[in-house]
């Protein structure tokens, strides 16, 4: 089958301007995108730069965007992308510094962020023989996460990274989960605090895109939610988030449902004049349209006492 690959090009040793080269290649049935790239480089253009390593979908090194979506080229079959026509576009990831052609800066994309979460384990205690054994059952929860091979597909799917490249991203935060929930960790709360800083877990919108992108089914979003739940249950250290969550929890606990007016005011902080002033234009407009709920003028739900009881019991259980 004749397929035209439209490949993103950029060469810092020439003018460094982005462009595109078209290569029409005869590819055999069942060929992968990576095999096609080898063919282009070997037979047509030795200057084309791309990455690969394991060639079997286990390392993530060859990830690029195939027709706009992130894929591992070593497992992506050409035939899966030519149903609408014999053309395939290949691009480096979005919002990532490109080094040359399809080779982008992995340090900026992921590794520097992994380093930020203190990606090593400080164990509780070490026995005389230098081993720190744990039961198989105790490791079950993190075993799946340990199968992460850092392909970065979750970061590529992330909703936050396109608007803020400094967000730590699901890959690094999932690494933090793997360490915080390791039964050998001597201070898992400290590990959670590291990712409570700005650009960490509280900047995640928990949209579950990462879970859809992960080729290993590790479910990074659920791991981030578990880190947040742990922070909630042991006292959130991010100030603005703590105010918001405490207000939310208090209103559900006291009345069964949410007092949104109170939440808006208390999230800013009752003594934060600047923050409260910021709310005024929208609040005034909303009020004039009968839209904004008045803080603290909130009625209890029927059975609010029963919700409160559940709330208190759950808090007690967690302790």
């Amino acid at each position, binding site marked *: 089958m004749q397929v035209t690959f439209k490949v993103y090009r950029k060469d810092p040793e020439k003018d460094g301007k982005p462009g595109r080269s078209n290569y029409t290649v005869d590819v055999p049935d069942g060929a992968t995108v990576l095999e096609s790239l080898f063919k282009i480089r070997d037979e047509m253009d030795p200057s084309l730069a791309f990455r690969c390593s394991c060639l079997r979908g286990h390392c993530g090194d060859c990830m690029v965007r195939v027709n706009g979506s992130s894929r591992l080229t070593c497992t992506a079959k050409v035939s899966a992308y030519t149903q609408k026509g014999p053309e395939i576009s290949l691009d480096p990831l979005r919002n990532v510094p490109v080094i040359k052609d399809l080779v982008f800066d992995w340090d900026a994309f992921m590794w520097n962020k992994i380093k930020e979460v203190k990606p090593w384990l400080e164990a509780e205690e070490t026995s005389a023989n230098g081993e720190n054994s744990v039961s198989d059952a105790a490791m079950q929860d993190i075993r799946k996460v340990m199968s992460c091979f850092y392909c970065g597909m979750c970061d590529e799917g992330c*909703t*936050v990274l*396109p*608007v*803020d490249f400094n967000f730590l991203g699901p890959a690094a935060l999932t690494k933090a989960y793997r360490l915080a929930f390791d039964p050998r960790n001597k201070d898992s709360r400290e590990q959670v605090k590291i990712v409570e800083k*700005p*650009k960490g877990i*509280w*900047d*995640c*919108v*928990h*949209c*579950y*895109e990462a*879970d*859809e992108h992960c080729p290993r089914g590790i*479910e990074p*979003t*659920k791991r981030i*939610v578990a880190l*947040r*739940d742990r922070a*909630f*249950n042991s006292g959130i250290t*991010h100030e*603005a*988030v703590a*105010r*918001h969550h405490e207000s*939310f*929890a208090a209103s*559900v606990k006291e009345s*069964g*449902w*949410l007092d*949104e*007016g109170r939440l808006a005011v208390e*999230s800013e902080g009752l003594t934060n004049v600047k923050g409260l002033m910021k709310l005024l*234009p*929208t609040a005034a*407009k*909303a009020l004039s*349209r*009968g*839209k*904004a*709920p008045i803080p603290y003028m909130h009625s209890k*739900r*029927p*059975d*609010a006492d*029963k*919700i409160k*009881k*559940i709330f208190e*019991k*759950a808090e007690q*259980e*967690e302790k």
Partner: protein
Amino acid sequence: MKYAFYPGCVSRGGCPELYPSAVKVADKLGIELDELKSVGCTGAGVLPQNISDPINARTFAKAEQLGLPIMTICSTCTGVMAQANYRLKEDPNYRDTINRQYLADEGLEYKGTTEVKHLLWVLFEDYGIERLQSLIQRPLKGLKVSPFYGCYLRRPPEAITPTKELNRRKAYLDELIGILGAEMADISGKGKCCGFPILSANEENSLAMVAKHTGESKENGADFMVTPCPLCHLNLDGNQARAEAQTGKEIDLPILHLPQFVGLALGFDSSEMNLKRHIVSTTNVESKVSMMS
């Protein structure tokens, strides 16, 4: 056709235009609603699971007693409840523990039979599109509309799109735009996050998301955007002016709730759908709709 109606906090709080619009539309369609009043907030993804799962289990048990599926008008309520319901249905031991520890005191038990559906799903899966089409009195011809789902109405798959057939849920809003006679102004971020969940933690990022989605919709010629999620509405409508100030770009895109959009096609006036209550002016939409009448 009857549902245990779970309207959610926002439909009467920050978006008080939503609740009455939804009730009017349901009434016109002949969908009977038995409102669940003595139940709690879903937790909205803010409360941790160890607190919100038992509160949601209690809601499911109440609906189970009525023998009715739950209908919501909020993507976030649907998503949080569907995820909790998945855990409770899939793991009988977990359900037993929740029942024993939290519900038994009230003599309640959740047996794991309650279904949770958004109005959008109800229209396609239970009500039927042909029946809906037969009730359209004002095809919204000439209006260009962008869909915006709210993340929780699309993911995670085990709770939201558990079968291949139900993968269609990811396109219901796209389909509905055509069914109601309007034209689609598609946007790349229709299934992404609106930014609302991080408004406290990172306002700049949150507003950047508002500007991205509404700006793209406007560039694609939309008259308005429609969303089944009132939390998305709070950010996309309520904070659009701040997003404009942050990016220095005028957007001015009205955001309609799903029931308002359906209601206009069913023949309700803009005033009956409470369009005037929005923060971004809906005047242009109202005048176009009034020309159709």
